[in-house]
């Protein structure tokens, strides 16, 4: 059983192609179902975001699985395979695991450490699990990747600090006001960033959002998009006086908010802080407004600087995040090796148990004189002896350091005890559960 990954990402394919191969806009479950019709994949997960479409499958026949996944991509998206195969990347086993861990950690994202990706990986797994397309291999692998994502977020600063102007503005607002619930926002002039910022503030629970613009049509449109209230342009000064957060983005050539204006309405000392985000170029707010005691004035360059600082700080955290990925990859590989030993362990156990039972039945006549409790005791003792004998070899087999050693050991055991490997291969999954239980009893 091998893990095979095929996909396109922002590193290998242009956006036009990624759009054509996107699953996220449509039903992920349907994609998983369609993929299930291909016989080579025992398990499959489809991960799709605007930056990547990746298919993880588990198969005994990697070459055939790759072919079938390519064919699936072509048919599902109605695209000749020649159009995307040059952009397709493929990883097997450890490389595929490593890739998924890096994706979940946010290391493979365009903006390193962006927070959405871990949720998207979880959604992808969830969709596949709901359609019963995940089994022991991908279940373990994806849950492990969630853990990697969580560890990287908790232990490094990879996801820290806003990396867009609108998020930086919201983060600052939260640092000034704490909870934003009930805070009054004033948006002056409509623009892309001011709209985005207002929307982020809305999702952070601000109270009323007032919108004004020289063209009242613009104000109305923006007001309805952020669930706010449009006010007349002439009421600007009054609105500034009652606002906690002001976002300005007009095309005005001269400042529309001046120090004299604010001081005329609120007096020399404002009781509550006022956070002004001036996104306009040329600026809408007189620079000296920032000198008023409780006023925090940020223009677009200030916010851009914060974003740049945050980005470079994230970059400096990449190394620590990669170290966590490497560490977890090693643990995962060790787990997989221990799992590779399972068929041998099961066969060995069955072999020992068969001997135990045949010996017991051979002695059946001699033991028939014993009372039932004593016979049960004998049965129990023989079982315990077998378990004790096998405990240490089982541990050793599970903890073998690399694959080569494992093959050598397995081979040796098979030959020493004349085990037939084929007998137990089919029941790997149940066997692994059985071994764990047996371990627990043995200890």
């Amino acid at each position, binding site marked *: 059983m091998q893990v095979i990954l095929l996909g396109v990402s922002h590193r290998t394919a242009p956006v036009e192609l990624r759009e054509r191969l996107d699953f996220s806009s449509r039903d992920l479950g349907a994609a998983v179902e369609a993929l299930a019709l291909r016989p080579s994949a025992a398990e499959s997960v489809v991960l799709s975001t605007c930056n990547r479409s990746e298919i993880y499958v588990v198969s005994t026949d990697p070459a055939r699985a790759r072919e079938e996944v390519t064919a699936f991509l072509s048919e599902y998206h109605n695209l000749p395979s020649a159009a995307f195969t040059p952009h397709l990347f493929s990883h097997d086993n450890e490389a595929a695991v490593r890739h998924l861990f890096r994706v979940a950690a946010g290391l493979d994202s365009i903006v390193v450490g962006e927070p959405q990706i871990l949720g998207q990986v979880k959604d992808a797994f969830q969709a596949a699990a709901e359609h019963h397309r995940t089994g022991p291999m991908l279940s373990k692998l994806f849950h492990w990747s969630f853990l990697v994502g969580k560890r990287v977020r908790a232990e490094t600063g990879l996801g820290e600090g806003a990396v867009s102007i609108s998020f930086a503005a919201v983060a600052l607002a939260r640092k000034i006001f*704490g909870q934003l619930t009930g805070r009054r926002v004033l948006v002056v002039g409509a623009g892309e960033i001011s709209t985005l910022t207002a929307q982020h503030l809305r999702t952070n629970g601000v109270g009323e959002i007032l919108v004004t613009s020289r063209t009242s049509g613009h104000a109305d449109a923006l007001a309805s998009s952020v669930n706010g209230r449009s006010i007349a342009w002439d009421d600007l000064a009054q609105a500034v006086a009652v606002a906690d957060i002001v976002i300005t983005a007009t095309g005005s050539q001269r400042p529309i908010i001046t120090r004299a204006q604010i001081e005329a309405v609120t007096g020399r000392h404002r*009781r509550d802080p006022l956070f002004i985000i001036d996104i306009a170029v040329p600026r809408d707010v007189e620079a000296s407004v920032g000198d008023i005691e409780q006023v925090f004035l940020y223009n677009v360059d200030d916010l851009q600087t914060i974003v740049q600082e945050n980005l470079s700080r994230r970059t400096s955290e990449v190394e620590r995040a990669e170290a966590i990925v490497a560490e977890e990859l090693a643990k995962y590989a060790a787990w997989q090796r221990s799992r590779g030993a399972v068929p041998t362990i099961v066969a060995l156990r069955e072999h020992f148990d068969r001997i135990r039972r045949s010996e017991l039945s051979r002695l059946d006549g001699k033991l028939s004189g014993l009372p039932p409790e004593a016979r049960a005791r004998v049965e129990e003792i023989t079982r315990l002896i077998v378990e004790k004998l096998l405990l240490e070899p089982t541990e050793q087999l599970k903890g073998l350091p690399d694959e080569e050693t494992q093959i050598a050991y397995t081979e040796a055991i098979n030959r020493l005890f004349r085990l037939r490997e084929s007998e137990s291969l089919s029941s790997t999954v149940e066997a692994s559960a059985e071994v764990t239980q047996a371990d627990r009893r043995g200890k």
Partner: protein
Amino acid sequence: MNLLPLALYAAAVVVYGIHFAKRQPSVGRAATTLLLLGVLAHTFVIGMQTMEVRHVPFSNTSTAVSSFVWMLALSYLYLEVTTDERAMGVFILPIVVGLLTVPVLYPGVDYRDPVLDSAWFWVHVASLLFAYATFALAAMLGLTYVLQFKEIKKKHLGYFYTRLPSLHVLDAMNSRAVVVGWLFLTIGVVVGIVWTAQARALSPENSNLQAMSLQDPKIFIAVLTWAVYSFSMFARKTLGWTGRRAAWLSALGFVIALLNFIPVSYFVTTSHTFQ
């Protein structure tokens, strides 16, 4: 006696410092655990002293400082548990450690003048010590407010920005601490006046009681402290003195209170020396 709690508090300062710099949750939990152990050990010490002298030990300055430190540590612990905010520890605990060295270096015996055998006295001292503890919290909240205010105002979002609670939270906690402290300060001063009047009637010869007047430095400065905090509350309400001005006022108030508490108590006052 106070050596064990002092050692635990000192260890907590170091761990709170590491937590502040590295921001690892596990380190933060270790810091809280050390602080909790320190408070428990300190409680034990104060309990033992109480058993020994058969009254709560805060009649002389050393034992009073120890009790004050205990209240401060306990108040901070309460603040931390209720707000789940550990960043303040690195600012509060140095005060705890600094002040607890005083009773460690001068371990005075808590001898008590029979004049002090009154419930009024107990209320007087306990209220004032608790008031000072909340003022210490307020001052440190104010200090951190100012540090972070500067960073946001000057647009250099740096060390404190990423570590401290929001300005609003710091300001609100500062305001609350000042109100609570002022309340206990008022109770302490009023009870002191009432009890002095009563005690004078009972023992007119006592020199300490004779020295109780506004001219006594200890009493004068206590009243001054009360005036500073009263003004701070008034200014916040009517003049809109929130934020930085409130922060500076609470820092000023605490400096005055601290001067009164230690140097004045040891060296200057003639009224509050019941030895």
